C-alpha cells in the first residue's frame, strides 16, 4: 500500500504534527473550560489528562506495531475482513472531516469576531482552503514539514505572554484543592477534547522514519502539548480573577489586549491573524487524513480528488450556512465524544483483540 519510500517523516515532524493537531484550536477556550469546572484548580487536571492521553498514545502505537508497513485499515482488513477496514476508514474519514470542519469553522468565527466582522464567511473559507489544499495534496512529508515550520515560526508566542505577568496575581492560584479533589476530576473531561489527534498515528505510522522511536515521540509530543497548556492556563489564571475568567470566551486572546508596546498598541490584532497559522495545524493534517481515508476506500492512491471535492463542498456550503458559535460548540462536543471512542476506547479494544487473536492462533498452532 504505502510503498512510496522516501516520502517519510522524521521524528521531529511527527512530534509537531501530533502536538499541532492537539493544541491548535482547542487551546483558545481551554483555560475557561477548566475554570468552569474547577475554578483556579483547573490546571491540576492538565497533568491528569496528560497521563490518560499518553496511555492512549502507547496503546495506539502498540496496535500499529503489529503492522509496521501498513495503515490501520490494512491491518483491520487482514484481521477481520475487508468490510471492517472499509467501515473504519469511513468512520475515521468522517471523524477527521468533521474535525477539520470544526476547526476551520472555529477559526473563521474567531477571525470574524475579532478582525473582520462584516466579511462574508465563505470568502474567508476560500482564503483558508488555498494553503490547505497546497499542503495537504502533497501528502505526509510536506505535512510534516509544514507543522515543523509553523512551530518554529511561532516560537515567539509564549514569550509575548510573559509581558502579561506584569499584572499577574499569583495569589489567584491558592489554595490548592480548595473544594477538594472532585471538581478537579470533573475538569478532566475538559482535557480530553484538547488531547485528541494522536489517532493520526494510525495513518502516519507507515511513513515514520524511526518507527522504534514512535512511543518516545508520542510521549514527547504529549509532553509538549501539556507544557503549552499548563503554561497558557496558569498565565490566564494568574492574570484574570477567578471570578471573571469564566466571562471570557477566549481568555488567551483577551489577555493579549492588555499588552502595550511603544511601537504597537493592541498586539492582539496581528496576533489573531497570526494565530491562523496555529489553527491551520489542526485542519490541514485532518484534511489530508480525511482525504486519505476516502481514497483508501475507493482503492486509489491519489488524495487530490477527494481533497478537491472537500474544498468545493465546504466552500459552497459555507456560502449558504456556517455554524454559529453555539452550534460550533455543540459540534465540538460531539466530535469530542466521537474522538474519545476512536482514540481511547477503540485502540484498547483492538489491542485486546489482537492479543487474544495471537494467543488463540498459537494455541491452534500447537
Amino acid at each position: 500500500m504505502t510503498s512510496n519510500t522516501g516520502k517519510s517523516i522524521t521524528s521531529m515532524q511527527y512530534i509537531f504534527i501530533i502536538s499541532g493537531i492537539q493544541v491548535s484550536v482547542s487551546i483558545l477556550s481551554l483555560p475557561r473550560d477548566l475554570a468552569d469546572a474547577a475554578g483556579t484548580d483547573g490546571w491540576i487536571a492538565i497533568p491528569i489528562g496528560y497521563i490518560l492521553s499518553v496511555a492512549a498514545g502507547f496503546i495506539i502505537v502498540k496496535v500499529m506495531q503489529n503492522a509496521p508497513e501498513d495503515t490501520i485499515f490494512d491491518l483491520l482488513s487482514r484481521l477481520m475482513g475487508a468490510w471492517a477496514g472499509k467501515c473504519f476508514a469511513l468512520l475515521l474519514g468522517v471523524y477527521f472531516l468533521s474535525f477539520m470542519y470544526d476547526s476551520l469553522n472555529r477559526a473563521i468565527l474567531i477571525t470574524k469576531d475579532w478582525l473582520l466582522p462584516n466579511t462574508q464567511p465563505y470568502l474567508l473559507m476560500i482564503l483558508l482552503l488555498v494553503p490547505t489544499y497546497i499542503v495537504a495534496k502533497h501528502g505526509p512529508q510536506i505535512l510534516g514539514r509544514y507543522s515543523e515550520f509553523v512551530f518554529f515560526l511561532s516560537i515567539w508566542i509564549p514569550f509575548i505572554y510573559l509581558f502579561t505577568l506584569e499584572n499577574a496575581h499569583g495569589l489567584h492560584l491558592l489554595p490548592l484543592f480548595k473544594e477538594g479533589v472532585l471538581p478537579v476530576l470533573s475538569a478532566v473531561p475538559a482535557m480530553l477534547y484538547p488531547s485528541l489527534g494522536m489517532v493520526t498515528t494510525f495513518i502516519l505510522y507507515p511513513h515514520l522514519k524511526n518507527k522504534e522511536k514512535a512511543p518516545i515521540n508520542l510521549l514527547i509530543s504529549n509532553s509538549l502539548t501539556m507544557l503549552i497548556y499548563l503554561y497558557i492556563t496558569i498565565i490566564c489564571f494568574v492574570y484574570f480573577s477567578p471570578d471573571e475568567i469564566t466571562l471570557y470566551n477566549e481568555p488567551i486572546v483577551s489577555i493579549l489586549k492588555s499588552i502595550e508596546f511603544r511601537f504597537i498598541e493592541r498586539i492582539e490584532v496581528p496576533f489573531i491573524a497570526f494565530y491562523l497559522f496555529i489553527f491551520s495545524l489542526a485542519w490541514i493534517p485532518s484534511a489530508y487524513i480525511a482525504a486519505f481515508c476516502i481514497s483508501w476506500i475507493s482503492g486509489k492512491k491519489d488524495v487530490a480528488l477527494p481533497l478537491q471535492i472537500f474544498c468545493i463542498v465546504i466552500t459552497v456550503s459555507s456560502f449558504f450556512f456556517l455554524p454559529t458559535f453555539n452550534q460550533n460548540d455543540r459540534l465540538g462536543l460531539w466530535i469530542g465524544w466521537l474522538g474519545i471512542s476512536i482514540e481511547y476506547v477503540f485502540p484498547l479494544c483492538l489491542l485486546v483483540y489482537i492479543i487474544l487473536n495471537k494467543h488463540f492462533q498459537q494455541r491452534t498452532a500447537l
Partner: protein
Amino acid sequence: MIEPSDNLLLNQSETISSNLAEIIPHINNLFSDTSDLVIRKLTIKQTGEKAILVYLDGLSDKTAINRDVMRPLQFEAGSGEPGDELIMTVSQIVPVTSWAQIEIALLQGSSVLFVSGRSEAYVLDTQGWPQRAIEDPQLETSLKGAHQGFLETGGQNIAMIRRYIPNRELKMKRVIVGRRGQTVVTILYLADVTDPNLVSTLELRIQKLDVDVILNTGELSELIEDHPFSLFPQFVTTERPDTAASQIMQGRCVVIVDRSPSVLVAPVTFMSFFQNIDDYSTRWSIATFLRLLRIFAFFVATFLPAFYIAVVSYHFEIIPMKLLLTLGESRGQVPFPPFVEAIFMEITLEMLREAGVRLPAPVGQTVGIVGGIVIGQAIVQAGLISNVMVIVVAFTAICSFILPNYDMVAAVRLIRFILMILASLFGFVGLVVGLMTMIAHLISLKSLGMPYGSPLAPVRFVDWKDTFIRVPLWLMKKRPTSTKPIQEMRQGNNRLKEDDL
C-alpha cells in the same frame, strides 16, 4: 550527444570522397550564400599532395592558420612519403570522415583540411572568435572576492573554475543542446562528493531538451526547473567563478552554457539566495550580521507596503496615539485610498528601477533626479501621496537592493504586489493567508528533486550553521546536507590550540 536532425543537415552520414574536385562543389553546395567561407588551395610540400583548407572568416584565428597550418604545410619538408602524418603546429588535429562533423566543426570556428587522395579530412583547432577581456562581474560585485567574471566562452569558464579546484575528481558531462544552436552545455561536479543521482537527473533533463537554440543560461534554467509556475527561482545563476567553485565544493552541480557569461548552480535552497561569496571572506560576526540584515530586508521588501495598506485601511487601532495623529494628518489630504496610493508609488518605483537599468549610465543619473525630486518631493507637496507612503516605498526599495540575488529580488517584487492586493482586501488576515500560502508553496518546492526549503523545512539543524548565521569557518566541518553529499567532511580540525598561538 544529440544528432542533428535530417532536414537541417544534408547527407549527414555521407562520407567524404578523396577527390578534391568533388569536394569543392560539395562545400559550395553546403554553404551557399556564405560569403565568410574561405577555401584556400595549396600544395603540401612534405608529401606533394594537393589540399584545400576551408574555414569561416572571423570565427577562426587567422594568425594561427597562417603560422601553424599554412606555413608548416608549405615550407616543411618531411620524409616525403605520401600518407605520412602531416606536419602542422596546431594543438589538436582530429581526423573525420563524415560531412556532418565537418559542418559542425566549420561552424564552430575550426578549419578543415582536405587532402587529395585521403578519405578523411582533418579538423584543425584554430578557433578564434571575437572575445572580450576578463572583467569584474557586473551583477555580483564583491568587495573582497576575486575580480574575475565568467566570459562568453565555455572553455574559458571551465578553466576559471578549474583554477579554483585543481582536482581530478572535478568531472564534466558534456551535452550539446539545440538543433540550430548546437550549444555546448557542460555539467561540472566533484565525483567523490556530489550525489550521482543529482548529476544523472540534471544530465537527463538537459539531454531531453529539443529546442532550436539556447542563447543564455536563463533559458536553460527555465526549461529544466522543477516548478515552472512558481514565482521563486529554483536555480542560482552566478557570474563569479569563485562562487561557482564554492558551490561545487558544497556538493552541487554547476552547469556551464557556452556563449553565456553566467553559470547555473543546482540544486539550491531558498536560503542560498541570501548567501554571498563575501560572507566567507569577512569576519564571521560581520557576515552573520549581514545575513540577518538580508533576511530582515527580504521580509520588509515583501511585506512592508502590504502591511501599511492593512494597517491604514483595516487595523489602525494598532498604531500608537502620537503616530496615529501624524499618520492621520498626512493621510487626511490624500484623495486616494491607501491601496491605490501604494500601487501607484510601487509602480513608479518599478518604472524608475527599470529605466535605470536600461539607460546608459550618463542618462541614468537623470532618472534618479527625476525620481527623487519630482516624484518624491513634489508628489507629497501636491498632496497626492502621503509622506508616510513615500517613506514606506523608499524603505522597501532600499531593502530590495540589499538582497544579493537578482532573481530573488524579481520574485520579491511580484510577491509584494500580490500581498498588497490581499492586504487591501482582507487586512492582516489576507497578509497571513498570503504568507501561509507562500510557506506552503516554498516547502513543497523542489530544486532538482531536493527540498527547496531546507534547512528550514525540513528542519536540518546541522545546516543552520550557514543559514541565519555564518559560524566561524573552522566549525563548518561538514558540507551542507541539503545536497546529500557522498563525502560529508570537508575539513579537519583547524582551530588553533592555545599552545599553537
